[in-house]
């Protein structure tokens, strides 16, 4: 994987990226007038209509809610390759960051609302020999 290149994820703008060591960068926007943080990046501030600037968001977060998806959507593969399902969560990024809907790594028993989670690179498949990764979060303790 190339350093600082956006994840190869279906024509998306840079919403997150990984470096050669798997370190995660989450790309967002900051309202120039209000300071409100957004993810994914916005073209304008949804609260004020004013300008925004690119910013990197915190990669640690607090779990707001979670679920465990047993039936992948439209027959898509589970990101963790587990036929029993995979976790999803709403996480509130630290430092007044926005809420994100993300894949969670780990078992359902490890998903505790209010606990701290950290961003991770989750490789899940290859396309034409190229590794494909998505952003995921896992409990900080693991």
């Amino acid at each position, binding site marked *: 994987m190339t350093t600082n290149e956006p994840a190869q994820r279906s024509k998306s703008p840079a919403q997150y990226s990984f470096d050669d060591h798997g370190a995660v960068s989450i790309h967002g926007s900051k309202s120039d007038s209000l300071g409100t943080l957004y993810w994914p990046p916005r073209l304008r501030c949804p609260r004020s209509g004013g300008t925004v600037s690119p910013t990197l968001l915190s990669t640690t977060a607090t779990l707001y809610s979670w*679920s465990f998806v047993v039936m992948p959507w439209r027959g898509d593969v589970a990101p963790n390759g587990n036929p029993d399902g995979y976790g999803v969560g709403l996480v509130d990024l630290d430092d007044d960051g926005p809420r994100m809907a993300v894949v969670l790594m780990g078992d359902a028993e490890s998903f505790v609302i209010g606990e701290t989670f950290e961003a991770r690179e989750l490789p899940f498949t290859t396309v034409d020999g190229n590794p494909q990764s998505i952003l995921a979060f896992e409990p900080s303790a693991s």
Partner: protein
Amino acid sequence: MSFSNDVFVLGVGMSRFGGPAQQLDERIIAASLEAIEDAGVPYADVESLYLGTSLAASTYGPPVVKDLGLTGLPVTRIENASATGGATFYEAVQAVGSGRLDLAMGIAFDDPSTSAVPDFNEVEGISPVLDPFVPPMAFFSMWAVRRMHEAGTTAETLAMIAAKNWNNARLNPNAERQATEEITVERVLGSRMLAYPHTARMAAPQGAGAAAVIVGSKKALERYGIAARVRVTAAQAHSERYADGHLFTGAIIGPPEMIERAAFSAYEQAGIEPTDLGVIAFHDAYAIEELLYYESVGLCAPGDGDGLVHDGQTQLGGRFPTSTDGGFIGRGHPSGPTGLAQIWELTHQLRGTAGDRQVANPRNGLAHIVGGGSVCYAHILQSV
């Protein structure tokens, strides 16, 4: 916004959602002819036609309704995700309520099995808004887990809501789900898990369907000698405002504030209170929605929705009968026509023609529907 002119529901029609294989064209024409016959007005006199679809190809719709008559009337397509039917009704009502027209028709339809709409993530140049790994059901399930965390709600409560809607659907010949025997809480809980805590029987099916409505002014009633039976007393359309924890990706149904705002602005327009409602139609694509919406639209205080369920207050014989036609979970949710199916049900309930699922003398009905993106429509119908 208030109406300049009174608006009445003159006729409704609907094809059964799901059910035996049938061409969408046939469903559309059948629902439309039923509405025309129910209204007792000639189609040639309809002054504007609104076609609601969220899944059909861009040119589909106007060619089909040519079979109703090439009258030269304006035909406009409407799309607003799951709320498309609500949007279609809203536009027809506004056309009459503003005084611009005396007779307008809405027809809405979809067949999810032949959807012409590409996945968001497959469109070059458009940022993905829906992560395939966090599907719509996951969002509603995360609502449910948060609710369980905050209020102690159990999966059994969600199953009670779903079972109610399945069993109401058994009394509706136009419902997609037609269970041959009563659906118990145990059967709902025992069905296949989709995303914890929602099982398959707590989620809406998506068969094909069509529904239609004709609305008219007082002048139209007089012109055709029709006795007014159902009046539209409020029509509200809303979208999101920024809130803490706002999401900008996913199957966004919007923050609770939008859900609440749509309902209460409708109450204000109609001059009623939530306690005046006698029948309610919700966007219960997943059981957690109906539970949360009880509170959002003011049927009970925040946190008291579980008690409403356990006390049977949302059953057909309860204080606030909800999803009386089966709702999304029982009647089905093709997408486009779902909102007009709500109007079909409220109209029959307010007329007293809902058959075995008739509730006792409802005076006001609320049709409340949300659409991803997100938008929310609230309509109040009143028996007259």
